[in-house]
């Protein structure tokens, strides 16, 4: 069923009788060509592109709970491609381009809103670093603009300038960045994949892999054994847990990242804004809530909740930047479990087991990467070779000394 304004009107006039389930609820088949483990954004996107772009047949997505219940529904909805390093920037720019055409592509309004993202600068060293980054973005075909404090205040007149501990000295803007309605991304991909024949199987937890002479041939699940020619794992937050079932140790730790939303407010913050002298980034949703976040709690955790010190730290930064926020109220806080990799960059690669493929280690980058991650993982699964924009995301980069370390923090995951 195709969605459109006309369809909405027609249904409204005929009692909404015609709406069908957005995706089927199929029984698992005995065998699939490709199984994707994880019904989150990346897993669903992978299945969608496999079916749509790579002629994939007999594809299943196995989700232990309900699709979109993980980080795709627990983030601050920001999309951008303002990365510095060669290993990353082309990939994230590819992702941003996919976002730009996504809704028409999968016929679902995910509210991709290119309201622009702004990284504030508070010191000369920061300006040098952001200049290098902005140039790297442009050289990679992305957009970037260096704004003066005056230009910034024209758009954000409420920023603290006269009483600031760390005065704003400019900012690096990417106007094509913005936000996306996160849940709708999962639902849109799910619906698009379902229409193309992908079986989306919820409440189906993978409990083990079946390996025969070095080749993965299927998975044990809470709904029985399911065979497959190829198995792709995309279970951000649970990667180590899943891969431990084949005795793999991963170069990552799981950390909780909290996110926050305020009560609904009339439009006040036009774009996405990121504080450069503290941990705070913020945008305003179409519903009116200020969606904001900050730093990791900092300790390994699989509990989807955090503690107060980080909440207070984030609000301190928010108030330091926008003193008007004192009168706004924090409505809800929640935590997502991040695969924090050892260099802050992801992995899209084959494993040492034939037929078993891995996608994870997204740190904070997961949501904005969803389309490209799905596309490149689909490429790897379908063609057995990495997509040109994802050649650096390999397991062996650590043993070979080819880290992709945007922040320059080294092998300490909670600093990325």
């Amino acid at each position, binding site marked *: 069923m195709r*969605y*459109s304004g006309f369809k909405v009107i027609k249904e*409204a*006039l005929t009692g909404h009788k015609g709406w*069908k*389930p*957005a995706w089927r*609820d199929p029984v698992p088949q005995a065998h699939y060509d490709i199984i994707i483990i994880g019904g989150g954004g990346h897993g669903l996107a992978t299945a969608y592109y496999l079916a749509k772009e790579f002629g994939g047949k007999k594809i299943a997505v196995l989700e232990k709970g*309900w699709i979109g*219940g993980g980080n795709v*529904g627990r983030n601050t909805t920001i999309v951008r491609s303002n990365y510095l390093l*060669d290993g990353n920037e*082309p990939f994230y720019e590819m992702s941003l381009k996919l976002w730009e055409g996504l809704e*028409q592509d999968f016929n*679902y*309004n995910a509210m991709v809103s*290119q309201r622009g993202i702004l990284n504030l600068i508070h*010191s000369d*060293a920061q300006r*040098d*670093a952001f*200049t*290098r980054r902005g140039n*790297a973005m442009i*050289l990679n075909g992305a957009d*970037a603009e260096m704004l003066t404090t005056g230009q910034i205040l024209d758009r954000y007149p409420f920023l603290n300038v006269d*009483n600031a*501990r760390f005065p704003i000295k400019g900012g690096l803007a990417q106007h094509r960045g913005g936000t996306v309605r996160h849940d709708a991304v999962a639902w849109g991909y799910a619906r698009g994949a379902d229409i193309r024949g992908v079986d989306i199987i*919820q409440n189906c937890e993978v409990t083990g892999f079946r390996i025969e002479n070095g080749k993965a041939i299927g998975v044990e699940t809470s709904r029985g054994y399911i065979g497959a020619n190829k198995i792709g794992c995309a279970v951000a937050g649970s990667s180590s847990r899943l891969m431990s079932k084949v005795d793999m140790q991963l170069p990552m730790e799981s950390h909780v990242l909290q996110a926050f939303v*305020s*009560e*609904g*407010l*009339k439009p006040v913050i036009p774009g996405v804004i990121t504080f450069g002298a503290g941990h705070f980034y913020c945008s305003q949703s*179409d*519903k*009116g809530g200020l969606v904001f976040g900050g730093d990791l709690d900092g300790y390994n955790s699989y509990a989807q*909740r955090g*503690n*107060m010190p980080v*909440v207070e730290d984030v*609000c*301190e930064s928010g*108030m*330091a930047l926008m*003193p*008007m*926020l*004192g*009168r*706004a*109220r*924090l*409505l*809800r806080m929640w935590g997502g479990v991040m695969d924090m990799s050892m260099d802050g960059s992801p992995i899209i690669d084959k494993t040492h087991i034939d037929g078993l493929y891995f996608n994870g280690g997204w740190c904070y980058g997961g949501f904005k990467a969803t389309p490209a991650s799905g596309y490149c993982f689909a490429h790897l699964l379908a063609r057995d070779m990495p997509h040109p924009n994802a050649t650096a995301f390999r397991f062996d980069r650590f043993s*070979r*000394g*080819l*880290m992709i370390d945007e922040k*320059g923090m080294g092998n300490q995951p909670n600093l990325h």
Partner: protein
Amino acid sequence: MTQINRITNGQTNPDQRLEFTFDGKTFYGQGGDTLASALLANGQRLMGRSFKYHRPRGPLTAGSEEPNALVELRTGGRQEPNTRATTAELYDGLTARSQNRLGSLKFDLLSINDRLSNFLTAGFYYKTFMWPAAFWEKLYEPIIRHAAGLGSLSKIDDPDLYDKGFLHCDQLIIGAGPAGLSAALVAGRSGAQVILADEDFRMGGRLNSETFAIGDQSGADWATATVAELATMPNVRLLPRTTVIGAFDHGIFSAVERVSDHLAVPATGKPRQILWRIYAKSSLLCAGATERPIGFENNDRPGIMLASAMRTYGNRFGVAADKRVAIFTNNDDGHRTAADLHAKGVKIAAVVDTRPDAPRSGDYEVLAGAQVIDTKGRLGLTFAEVREADGSARTLEVGALGMSGGWNPNVHMTCHQRGCPVWNDTIAAFAPGKNLPVGMAVAGAATGAFSTAAALSTGAKAAAAQLRHLGFQPKPPRQPKTEDTPTNVTPFWYVQGCNRAWLDQQNDVTVKDVKLAHQEGFRSVEHLKRYTTLGMATDQGKTSNMGGLAIMAELAGKSIPDVGTTIFRPPYTPTSMGVLAGRSVGRDFHPTRLTPTHKWAEEQDAVFVEVGNWLRAQWFPKSGETHWRESVDREVIATRNSVGVCDVTTLGKVDVQGADAADFLNKIYCNGFAKLAVGKVRYGLMLREDGIAMDDGTAARMAEDHFVVTTTTANALPVYRHMEFVRQCLYPDMDVQLISTTEAWAQYAVAGPNSRKLLEKIVDQDISNDAFPFMACADITVCGGLRARLFRISFSGELAYEIAVPTAYGDALIRRIMDAGAEFDVTPYGTEALGVMRIEKGHAAGNELNGTTTAQNLGMGRMVSKKKDSIGSTLSEREGLNRPNDLRQIGIKPVNPADPVPAGGHLMNATGPVDAAHDQGYVTSAAYSPSLGHMIALGFLKDGANQIGKRMRLVSPLTGVETEIEIASAHFIDPEGNRLRA
């Protein structure tokens, strides 16, 4: 306007007449009123508009769970959107405005949405607004955004102060209703440290809203007396107006005390609110319960409210919701409201009870087995349509209707660590489950025991049990006689066949929306919430979630517990961001660190710059200098030609002592230190274990067993932490002692050809080149005996020293240096000149040590000793860090001396395309060199060591620069180092 609906005085104070305005109109209320009770007293039922359809709304509740009666309170910088009129304590001069309307509250142009509601069903926006793509940001979204949102921020800085505080207790009691008060009595008398917190400004909870007695006094009087007794106990801390917002790990709670929100303006120097962090050995949740509405057509009109709220307005505030009211209930509790209001002379049109066997509860009509099926009234309820048991229709003319669908225990805090509530059939609601937060127990209505007697006894028992566990000997008192009626409820969620029956009144989620979501396959609770926005409003679903669950259960043919519940997250009620930030705002966001010369530098009109938390002099403008470059160029030239002085105190200093001090430094530095002679300084490069450069600095050997290590300003803390890690975790038996002395010593660089001459006038010892050569260090004295340290090291490349004295003497020393140096025209220089000179000399700094560069990249590959084990040495040998064409640090100068060479620019070959694929390197630091008369820069270039002299392009498309440059040695000045050895 008179208070036409003020029937008695309840617990408000008629002698305290408070004037306030709502939408510019003046009203009067009484002390003890909330904004909502005062407006209702004045016959003002209409207080807000709903989020989506802009339906007219009045208060649904009398508490913090209120979805409808949200206002903008106060004005200017104190304007506070989405404030619940039902909890806003009335004060004289209060001003409030209705919100989320286009036009007036009565005539909201956006109420057109209500007419279009059939098109605006759950999730409709996911299915349209997609063509043409560009229209989303330009057309659709702006319209949606401006219709959406509730109240508005002023965009003015919040002028108020917020405090944070820390409390410790044996027992934290959350909620001061009957259960909490009776618990507090037991705990208080046991001598334990007790904190009793309640969100209301008047403790007592439901007792203030009910009429029944406790012993021989009214419930409210018993509460007052109990609070009075507790107030006399030194070990009991009463926190009214305090909401416990969350239960966190290991017995830590956060609570917000609204110290001044009941005042027009906080007293001078006093906070508006306090965020308490409470460390509780045990906690007792006595949060009570919340009544449920019932779903029926148009159940959202002003005047329709929870029966318990109607009772609160009547009993506590002495306000009738209207002169004629009806009750719609599925349980006995609904009848209480009728009885209480009837006793106060309010006309009870009828009690509509869904149960065929409904009891008679008073001298008014009870319609057993009947249902309210629809209502009328554009801006407020006028008629309720009733279907009687026999099917006949009946119209009640009423201005208010109380709904009683049973009660939900307030289990929220039990879920904050992801505990799950369990279904309880007798009360037809979820009650606290097993895995509560550590140290928490629950008592009273929050457990589902709804009678007052149960509250008193469970409160006392639970408190006693916890206290015994903590080693106290509590004595549970004899409980006074009081109301003990059993809960009698027959689940009834919504009237069959209704469509526009509101579940979530703020977000306008109706029964129809839930059915549609189910039809479209959004069948998990999480999907339902996210697709319909049910329970996502500012009331966090306190009155709406259950209804949604019940309907889903019916549609799925499952029981409610099988469908599941939604986990509640902190905060319990929305919390102002101001109080979460506390005092760390504005200039106090982070502490400021001042150098020993700060006072003196201010006298020199220095311009300061933030370096981490430090404030450092950036340059020292002289009169007549109009541009910072003039000052900086002068400082550089003066230093290179004669002598300059710069405060370098901010560099981290670590005192390393012990028999194994040298071996220890051998571990943390990649180059060797074991053989460093006493009285000598050596440059050291520190690697991370992953082989990447971490920090650099110098280590001075003051004695066999004593080194003074310096770090960069930025890395002082992480490097110290790293050194302690190596000491305690890797080499626990090394005899090494560490302590930071960064702030203990004032340290100044004295640089330039005349630096020795200058210092000779101050230092008491011989510092001639022979006695004190390059890289020498010593404990010395200055000015006739003050202990000091002298290091002959040079960042500028000139003959230079760093001299250190105890911080208290820093001010005196800088003044003495300036006096002694007058004959050499000694010039103070700031961080800018420092930066220029280090670039001229090719010294790496923060911009080069950016966390991705190796010793190789920095041209120091040979420093990494292969003869010993040091942190990072093994992993630094990985192939990827040792490729022949790796980046190398180089110098850059413009071919045309007038051209700029901006930092952050990228290096491209002289010809060929300009894109990422052809990127050859980048510029890390750049400056104008007054010594050379043109800009110079440091950068990293592929195979840089072999590119010296090469012509390339420096491009910075971001800033619109493309310059022809030449690759040079990074050592622009005195590459042989003759000057610093002079």
